[in-house]
């Protein structure tokens, strides 16, 4: 379905205010267009040299004024109603887009920069906002006005009205031609500005590095290139606009008058048919009222262009396949996890996991060991169903997780990521994520368990200490502790820790380890780490290499095995000398 049709569909969600607005608009157009008729009447009947009939003129003028005021009032309410409709439509569109994002799979987010996604929800919808609010209301207002004018012209003089009709196809063809070129230029302009903004954003994030390596000049040069290209294409678009748009309408308008004068001029010289002055007056008046709206329409072309492009991007997003967010709650499962011959690839045929088989019983601690890229993080992604495996099955308590809605079993899972992400808010909201199920007490307890008194000691407001943008004022270690407390507060049946303990000093880590012991009871825990003390106590150690499990067992068993694990351990002990 075309973009325009879909925009129309959205408008239909709020047809009441829009409809009322349109009705008021139509009324306003008619009260407005009655004016010239009244003027014509005055001129033809009461405005003869030497003769002045005061009373009728005054009466008619009062009618004229009343109509003008009526038009004004109608216009006011028309504007407000149309705005209400348009704003509601945009609100719905935005909510739909944002809601849809929640259903998209993680790989959408991994493959597209955050800035671009945000642009769809806010900036692009804002362009559509302008479409409804400005473009459409101008289009509709103008269209109805033009219709009214033509009706009036036909009433006055059919032949000239027919001539006037030629204007329409001219405008239409012009609109098509303009859009063809304008859309090319517009595309470049919008792409460039998106790139520029992405660059500004990235530079701000990485400013310390840029400055530490004195790469300011390089950044400036790269930026200049994009900035200039953007400018060039804007200029091309301007050239096009200056040659057409308002300029061309002016030409059309004057041409129309030329024809008008020529026609009526020759008429007056050749035929005996006399045309009243009043008719001429009205004709000129209506012609002016014809081109006003035409100018309005033409002025909207470029905005229309931009908005349609933005709309197509938004609809593209809405069309991408998503999975409904389930609100089904399932009872807390035991936490028995089975990987049955699982193979997985992020990119087609580049398998990062090959034939993974293991069983984790409820409450067991499984340690995943292996060099970077061996597949540890991928296993975690699969357990969470951030991605799904190409081959094999993953079972929780005997049920294939593909058969359970993602949100349902995630309710009883907890995760501590490699890169702790904090939200704007307070320390408390970062632990509870504002979920009403997590009380302040729970937050306090969780923070204590992870050694959080350290985090809070130096902060004046304690739990209520504000956290700004990604927690940039807290140290890396503090952010990890909070992220950890978050996992504890949600009391999961399955817990996953991904290299989370590598940025904390040994002493703090020990405190967490202790808390872990308490927490691990009754929970199945998967740990991806490098610290031996964690791994030593695991019920099962899985040694991964290039996506395959090469060794498995307890620490003692693996040492006895004398394989990769034993070698690693032995070498490590020697690293200190």
């Amino acid at each position, binding site marked *: 379905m075309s973009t325009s049709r879909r925009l129309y569909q959205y408008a239909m969600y709020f047809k009441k205010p829009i409809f009322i607005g349109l009705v008021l608009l139509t009324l306003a157009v008619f009260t407005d267009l009655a004016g010239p008729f009244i003027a014509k009447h*005055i001129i033809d009947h*009461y*405005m003869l*040299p030497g003769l002045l009939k005061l009373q009728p*003129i005054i009466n008619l*003028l009062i009618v004229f*004024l009343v*109509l*003008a*005021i009526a*038009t*004004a009032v109608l216009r006011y309410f028309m504007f407000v109603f149309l*705005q209400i409709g348009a704003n509601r439509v945009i609100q719905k569109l935005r*909510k739909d887009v*944002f809601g849809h994002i929640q259903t998209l799979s993680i790989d959408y987010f991994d493959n597209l920069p*955050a800035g671009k996604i945000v642009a769809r929800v806010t900036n692009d919808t804002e362009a559509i906002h302008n479409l409804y609010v400005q473009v459409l209301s101008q289009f509709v207002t103008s269209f109805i006005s033009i219709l009214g004018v033509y009706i009036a012209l036909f009433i006055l003089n059919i032949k000239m009205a027919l001539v006037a009709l030629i204007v329409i196809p001219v405008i239409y063809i012009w609109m098509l031609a303009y859009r063809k070129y304008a859309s090319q230029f517009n595309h470049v302009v919008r792409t460039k500005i998106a790139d520029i903004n992405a660059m500004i954003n*990235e530079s701000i994030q990485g400013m*310390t*590095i840029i*400055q530490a*390596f004195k790469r300011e000049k390089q*950044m400036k040069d790269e930026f200049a290139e994009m*900035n200039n290209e953007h400018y060039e294409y804007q*200029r091309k678009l*301007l050239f096009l*606009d200056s040659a057409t748009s308002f*300029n061309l309408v*002016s030409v059309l308008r*004057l041409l129309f*008058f030329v024809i008008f*004068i*020529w026609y009526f*001029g020759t008429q*007056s*010289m050749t035929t005996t048919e006399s*045309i*009243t002055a009043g008719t*001429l*007056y009205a004709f000129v008046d209506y012609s002016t009222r014809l081109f006003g709206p035409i100018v309005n329409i033409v002025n909207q072309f470029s905005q229309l262009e931009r908005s349609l492009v933005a709309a197509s991007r938004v609809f593209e997003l809405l069309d991408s396949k998503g999975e409904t967010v389930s609100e089904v709650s399932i009872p807390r499962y035991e936490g028995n996890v089975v990987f049955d011959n699982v193979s997985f690839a992020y990119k087609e045929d580049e398998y990062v996991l090959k034939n993974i088989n293991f069983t984790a019983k409820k409450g067991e601690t499984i340690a995943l060991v292996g*060099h*970077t890229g061996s597949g540890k993080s991928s296993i975690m992604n699969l357990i*969470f169903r951030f991605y799904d495996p190409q081959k094999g099955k993953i079972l929780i308590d005997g049920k294939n997780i593909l058969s359970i809605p993602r*949100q349902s079993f995630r309710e009883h899972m907890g*995760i501590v990521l490699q890169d702790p992400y904090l*939200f*704007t808010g307070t320390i408390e909201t970062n632990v509870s*994520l*504002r979920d009403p199920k997590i009380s302040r007490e729970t937050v306090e307890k969780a923070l204590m368990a992870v050694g959080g008194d350290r985090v809070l000691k130096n902060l004046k407001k304690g739990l209520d200490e504000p956290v700004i*943008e990604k927690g*940039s004022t807290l*140290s890396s*270690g503090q952010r990890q502790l909070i992220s950890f407390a978050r996992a504890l507060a949600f009391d999961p049946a399955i817990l996953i820790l991904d*290299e989370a303990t590598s*940025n904390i000093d040994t002493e703090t880590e020990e405190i967490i380890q202790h808390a872990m012991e308490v927490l691990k009871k009754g929970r199945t825990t998967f740990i991806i780490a*490098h610290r*031996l003390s964690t791994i030593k106590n695991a019920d099962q150690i899985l040694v991964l290499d290039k996506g395959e499990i090469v060794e498995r067992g307890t620490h003692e068993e693996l040492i006895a095995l004398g394989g990769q694990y034993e070698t690693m*351990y032995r*070498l*490590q002990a020697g*690293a200190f000398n």
Partner: protein
Amino acid sequence: MFEVLYKLKWFFKAYWKRYLIAVGLLMIANIAEVVPPWIIGIAIDDIALGNMTPDSLREYLIWLGLIILFGYIINFTWQYQLFGGALSLERIFRKKLMHHFLKMTPTFYEKNRTGDLMARATNDLNAVSLTAGFGIMTLLDSTIYMGAIIIAMGFLISWKLTILSMLPIPIMAVLMQYFGKIVHERYTKAQDVFGELNDSVLESVAGVRVIRAYVQEKKDEKRFADMSEDVYEKNIQVAKINALFGPITKVGTGISYVMALGYGALLVSNGDMTVGQLVAFNVYLGLAVWPMMAIGEMINVMQQGNASLDRVQETLDYEQDVKNPNNPVHVESPISIGFNRFSFQYPMSQIKNLHNISILVKRGETLGIVGKTGSGKTTFIKQFLKEYPVEEGQLTIDCVDITSLSKDELLEWIGYVPQDHVLFSRTIRENILFGKSDATQEEIDEAVRLAYFEKDLKNLPLGLETLVGEKGISLSGGQKQRVSIARAMIKNPEILILDDSLSAVDAKTEANIIENISRVRNGKTTIITTHRLSAVQHADQILVLDEGKVIEQGTHEELLQTEGWYKEQYDRQQLEEVSSDEY
């Protein structure tokens, strides 16, 4: 309201030629606009009275034709020049902002959220550039054009009629001014809420994994819905006042028309005016509608432009927190680094983050810094980057205070590897070349080797040409760290700073990298902060920090003897590591 134009006078001065042409032609065009109605008026009189002759008809048509032709050319030219000026302004301001951002240090970025800075670089910039094009046009249209119309009406037709029918204008102007202010206030509020919405969405997208892992999707949606309702409210508030402009114009012009017709009827019946002239007058009134509305538009544009310019200028006016000294002292190469009773506090911090630190590091030495989370290790390191002004104590290089050194020279010596790895959206090669843009292939290979990244590189399909960062693939934490190390190593810096840069690699890899580094960096200074004591075992000096203070200091052996925190950690860590990399 017009202050925005005054604030931009530097721009108008620089592009005076362009603006002279644009303004000049616009004025000519505006004046020329009043000729056709007059011609039409005369023609109509001829037609109505039956006085038209083929000659006079031809004359009218030729004149109109010429005006059409020249009008087109003139209009094209001023439009292109004027709006081109607006585009130039946009480009210039964007460049200024970018250049300014490149000079700002962390203090600035803590006070200004990225989303807000981005809004200034986009929305506010657009509003400002609008004033230089559209703003000027509406200004001239509402003044010169209006003036031309009024003069035409007065001279060509009747002054009395003109004055009478123009009476509503000043009243309308005043009303528009008043409402314009209100619109502006409400509009700013609407923009602010929109900005917040934007920030909120950014967070939801960036933190998507956390939101999903904790099943917060629905709640996130609800929060968004609430915010969008707020946006709706504010927009409607703006709309309610915006809706007044059209009607005000309508009533005003309505009154004008009534005056024109009423008094005009009187004049015509007295023989003081012809019907043709009345028609012309009517056309003029029609033309005058746009300039009257232009007043309202102009007010809008100027006010918004003014507000936005203030915001942009505020950002640009923010002075560097750490300025370069006027006469920097030149130091050939850093022979020694000294901290003398150095104390430091972050601008937003309530406590001192570094207390009274004194230490001397000689060239070629390796300094190790250890301590608990939050003890001040990174803070200590950051002092070298001259990101914050020095307050208490001294940091000297070769006995020259750091405040007397130019940041440029200082950074030339430094190779910095941060704790939070930062890679840019470009190829790995380009990321590494960040350290030395003219490095040879051998130098790149060597840096990769030293950072123990060769194997990973081989496993990447495109090797060095692999795109990373936002647009490319996601490297693991350890891989990012090693690329960052390669980036610093390729510079072969006098002072290498590793801020807990090996936390995501296992101990064995770390040991290898450290060994590589110390081998090639004989005679150069290296500073390492870490949690793993094995990394700084061989350091010439080790500092143990706690809450910003030095609690233990010495070599590895000395610290073991001290039997303090260091020894405790050492004992714990001895048995804790498992190497999980190649051997």
